[in-house]
């Protein structure tokens, strides 16, 4: 049994102009202690997937259907009260915006201690002592002083460290990090990624890393789920995915990453882009979701939605023309 099993997750929102299918039939699993990256463009449904796991989607207008099992327990069937015991305790979450994700009128120590008081019944003094330890753990200097400070007295990187301290305070089994480094300077990004990797080793939590940054994925993930227009289009271990992307969308994503210094060594090629826009999620899409932007799309693609198939061991892709054996993109074009 995997730690987290998501099956046919559908998160829809009722809006005045119709139903938006933000997540439409996504399934994946996360093993204990594993780091899984969920990648895709803005609006592909990766954040909504993450929020759905903790049931942080306001219902209504949202509606979550399908199945989310955590440690074998169906989360979608739990009461709000039972869900609260899981949030911040067994599953916790880090958000993209460290500048605005901390409450400006409460001290950081109080905010770290709050989860401990809620979930572990610690009293005020014990919670503060533990908050100081957590600050130390996430590498904040002078933790005994910082614990009494307010978020506005800390830099962006420090605030994200505090967010991580809050998330890890109760030793969760699963940490969902939604673009944890996107809002930070590059040098700070590296520090935060190092910190997350280091803490993961110590705490043993599984991580679901939501990102659009393939550099970050290559750096920390073990397995990758690629999402597009609310669906999973490809899933593979990180090595095969980067070496042998099966889905044209994944190939497009990898092709649009600039290579550092390539213009100096003369190996520079024009950065490829994926033409067009993510289709509207308000209509049901017939055929392949990526067909409207895919250079290789045929009538078959536009009519029949491709099933997610194992193209190689552990490597799933939803494309009619993705090769079954590891021959990569060239073979696909030939097909």
């Amino acid at each position, binding site marked *: 049994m995997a730690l987290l099993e998501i099956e046919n997750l559908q998160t829809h929102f009722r809006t005045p102009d119709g139903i938006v299918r933000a997540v439409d039939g996504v399934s994946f699993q996360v093993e204990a202690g594993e780091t899984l990256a969920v990648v895709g463009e803005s609006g592909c449904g990766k954040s909504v997937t993450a929020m759905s796991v*903790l049931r*942080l989607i306001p219902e209504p207008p949202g509606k979550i259907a399908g199945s989310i099992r955590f440690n074998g327990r169906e989360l979608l069937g739990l009461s709000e009260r039972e869900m*609260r*015991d*899981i*949030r*911040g*305790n067994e599953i*916790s*979450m880090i*958000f993209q*915006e460290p500048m*605005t*994700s*901390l*409450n*400006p*009128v*409460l*001290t950081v120590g109080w905010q770290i201690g*709050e*989860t401990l008081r*809620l*979930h572990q019944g610690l009293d005020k003094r014990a919670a503060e002592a533990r908050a100081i330890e957590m600050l130390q753990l996430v590498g904040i200097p002078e933790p005994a002083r910082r614990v009494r400070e*307010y978020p*506005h007295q800390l830099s962006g990187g420090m605030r994200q460290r505090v*967010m991580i301290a*809050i998330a890890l305070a109760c030793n969760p089994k699963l940490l969902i990090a939604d673009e944890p480094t996107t809002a930070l300077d590059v040098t700070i990004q590296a520090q935060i990624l190092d910190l997350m990797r280091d803490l993961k080793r110590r705490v043993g939590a599984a991580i679901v890393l939501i990102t659009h940054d393939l550099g970050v994925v290559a750096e920390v993930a073990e397995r990758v789920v690629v999402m597009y227009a609310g669906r999973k289009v490809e899933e593979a271990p990180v090595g095969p995915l980067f070496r042998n992307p099966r889905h044209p969308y994944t190939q497009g994503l990898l092709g649009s990453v600039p290579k550092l210094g390539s213009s100096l060594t003369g190996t520079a090629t024009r950065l490829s882009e994926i033409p067009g826009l993510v289709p509207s999620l308000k209509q049901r899409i017939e055929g392949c979701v990526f067909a409207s932007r895919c250079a290789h799309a045929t009538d078959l693609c536009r009519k029949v939605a491709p099933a997610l198939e194992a193209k190689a061991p552990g490597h799933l892709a939803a494309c009619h023309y993705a090769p079954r054996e590891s021959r990569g993109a060239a073979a696909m074009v030939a097909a």
Partner: protein
Amino acid sequence: MYAYVARRILATIPVMAVVALFVFSLLYIAPGDPAAVIAGDQATPEDVERIRQSLGLDRPYLVRFGAWLWDILRGDLGVSIFTNLPVSTMIAQRIEPTLSLMVVTLLFAVSVAVPMGVVAAWKQGTLIDRMVMAFAVLGFSVPVFVVGYLLAYVFALELDWLPVQGYTSFREGFGPWLENLVLPAIALGSVYIALIARITRATMLEVLQQDYIRTARAKGVGQRGILFLHALKNAAVPIVTVIGIGIALLIGGAVVTESVFAIPGLGRLTVDAILRRDYPVIQGVVLLFSFVYVLVNLAIDLIYTLLDPRIRY
């Protein structure tokens, strides 16, 4: 911080000076002659003139203002033209009922209005929200005396639950004291409640959209903790500001409320003084009210620093 408080207290002096000049000038321009009122219907013009001279009302404007200001600076609010009692004594006799009414109204209004606004924001768009908003519109648009007479009629005359009017001193027991203040406090508080509830709702709606509210939810904080701690503490500054500004509403409303419920407070004293053209009393009471208002708003500026650590003076 202390320097700031000292500066702010010093800054009240020019404010009070302007208020003093304004009050004095207004009464100078206003029609009516206290000498004629005191002399009565039977008096001859010579009698009135004599009284006017004895009160010093025949002296020029600036001389009178200067003399009055000098007295105030020495802590002397003057003597009532009508009763010959020192104004400060008259105020001291009447201050307890007014202060009681205002404090009870303030506590009642804040403890009703803030939860109302919070719940309305939480349940935005539902029946509860619409009821709160409808009540707020009603509270704004129905005058204090209408609410007052209505309450007195229903709860005092018809149901006989509470006294119709009057005031019992705090020294005669908490129960009777409060009993007499319930209806006046509701009448006086209705506009105030409407004002605070609306601001609370609007500010809370904004705060509930913030990222840190999502963080709190992700931590497993319950609905009550989200609303009354994480959100309300962030919404507190505008709410407290309105509570402070609303003190002016209470002062104005107290005059009417005290008349409706026959409470022998400063409001009644003011009305009587105006009817008798008792200048020193009017001036004394208005000065006192403006001083209270300035002090309350200073206190509120200081409360900001407790509510929001980003505000420092």
